[in-house]
């Protein structure tokens, strides 16, 4: 099963090395990892999607991560009512005769066209991961040139911040 963890860390050099080093050393399965700045200048928030057999295995991941000196706090968002988003930029082949088809698809998915080239278009879509998977699937017929995705980020709907949880 996949679990989503919000990992709050001190914004110090080497912190990502420590996190990735630990994941590799303990042979944990990580589906995605994203990091970015937060409301606090000295804090970075990492969203980890962990593939674990069960809660016991997940507990190991959490406890081991928690031992890292720069890790301030870990919140398991898997069972918390939360908003989960992934963003993709998809470059698709778009010759003049197929452009209107693609525009239709983009509008059905509430995606955005952010760049147009004589032969290609770049589409931006933000949503849950399966929505992005679905769009990529549909666009395959037109020929996908390349895709980039951010990996999942997640935020609880609760009025309390993870750091104060």
């Amino acid at each position, binding site marked *: 099963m996949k679990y989503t963890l919000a990992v709050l860390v*001190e914004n110090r050099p080497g912190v990502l090395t420590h996190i990735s*080093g*630990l994941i*590799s050393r303990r042979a944990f399965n990580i589906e995605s990892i994203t990091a970015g700045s937060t409301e606090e200048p000295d804090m970075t928030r990492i969203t980890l999607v962990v593939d674990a057999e069960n809660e*016991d295995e997940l507990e*190991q991941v959490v406890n081991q991560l928690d031992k890292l*000196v720069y890790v301030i706090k870990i919140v398991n968002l898997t069972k918390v009512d939360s908003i989960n988003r992934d963003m993709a930029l998809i470059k698709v082949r778009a010759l003049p005769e197929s452009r209107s088809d693609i525009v239709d698809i983009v509008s059905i998915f509430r995606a955005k066209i952010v760049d147009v080239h004589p032969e290609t278009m770049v589409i931006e879509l933000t949503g849950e991961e399966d929505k992005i998977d679905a769009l990529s699937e549909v666009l395959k017929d037109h020929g996908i040139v390349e895709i980039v995705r951010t990996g999942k980020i997640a935020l609880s709907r609760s009025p309390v911040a993870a750091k104060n949880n």
Partner: protein
Amino acid sequence: MLMNGAQALVKSLKSEGVDILFGYPGGAALTLYDALYDSGIRHILTRHEQGAAHAADGFARATGKVGVCISTSGPGATNLVTGIATAYMDSVPVVFITSQVATGLIGKDSFQEADITGITTPITKHNVLVKKPQDLLKCVKEAFYIARTGRPGPVLVDIPKDIFAAKMDFTYPETVKLKGYKPIFAGEKCKVSLVADALAQAKKPVFFIGGGINIAGVSEEFSRLIEKTGIPVTTSLMGMGGFPSDHRLNLGMLGMHGTYAANQAVTQCDLLIGVGVRFDDRVTGLVSRFAPNATVVHFDIDPAEINKNIKTDIRVVGDLNWSLSQLNSIITNPDISDWQCAVMKWKQERPLTFDEDTREIKPQSVIQEIDQLTDGNAIMVTDTGQHQMWTAQYYTFKKPRTLITSGGLGTMGFGLPAAIGAQLGCPDQLVWAISGDGSIMMNCQEIATAAEHNLPIKTAILNNKGLGMVRQWQRMFYQKRYSGSKHERGTDFAKLAEALGAKGITVKSAQELRPALEEAIKTPGPVFLDIWVSEDEDVLPMVPAGAALDEMIGG
């Protein structure tokens, strides 16, 4: 007062109470060495950086203080790696200070540059590259704090050459502010009550103690618990000395080369109480058949140890100083006389044995002789292999921190340099290093260090003309195909010792053994005994890898 970074570093080491450190200089470390020159801190120059790392580790294990090891950049730093990993696996507090090329040269494949923080991330409790002069003293303060608190461990501070030279004021921080690091002391009282309840109901309880007992310094509290309850005790390799080996309730070591009584007791118990242990695979054997009928209790300071290898029913996370005294204050006397009788019967009927021989020297008898001569009061430092297991089996450990051995990583070459550190930390105690003809060669250059400081370490090399533990496995599990495990041309270790400035004695027959050991103890300064032992002796009993604890061979 304005000073350079190196001088400020040395001053902060003094603030941390450091009066001795182990190291090896080099280009990037010259400013640091210059500051050490008239600092009053004793610097022990080993003959290899690995030796310095193990010596700092041995010092820390013997004294309980933080060990300090310094090196230059690049190869100086990478030579520490095995020593760092050894300390990490056994939770030893050592601060490693490595020099780095100047900040402007980092990342350019400069001469003697290595990314030592990257390399040591998985084998340190914490590490840091100091990037700005103003961070230096804070990083040093944090390193000592992190190394010695909570579950101890090695911390590495990598310092670029220009930061050693940077001018700064010495203002050593008084406190440490780390948002994400809060070592636990007290845990949940209700969990301790659960343990007391489980103990009151148990018919067949057994304690299993590990290195945590020695690290926390709770042997006396633990002994009171045992005197009160009469519960049998087994130990891991790292737990030896935490409870006297000659106590009637001590069943000896558990696991692969554990005693019959210990392995039976754990297999049959209904309550297993692990204290400061990590349920290593050498202890558990086949996990699914480890303590199959038992409620498992786990006392540890590190929450990540709970459920890592063995599923725990009751967890008590906290410092053992807190949890064991809590338990002692509420525990009642369980009625376990039938169980005590059964366990004592196993202990009496199936002790550790070996075939005595009058012609050849049996390696086990060497340990027994040393035990008798020292009355179990020496600090025993081992290398890794058969001799390590025989030391654990046949020496009577009476006090904490008297077995110094690489338990987790199993590092050959650990023994001699660790003995140097232990002897310097405990100058008034008798230190024995037990090694093999394989292990001793992995850091034999440190004989010169021991000789230079005239350290009275007595080293017994159990020489079986090959790699004994490898050969034992080849004999048992690889149809006696002795691949790459024989020293076809032996080394004259007595001559080697003499060449490096120590006394060497060769012991070839059983009759010579006792007098040679006595002579070694009487002789001041370092003595190396090359003891020719039976070549094909097995460490027994043995639970084959992946088998259950009650599937023992021999014994």
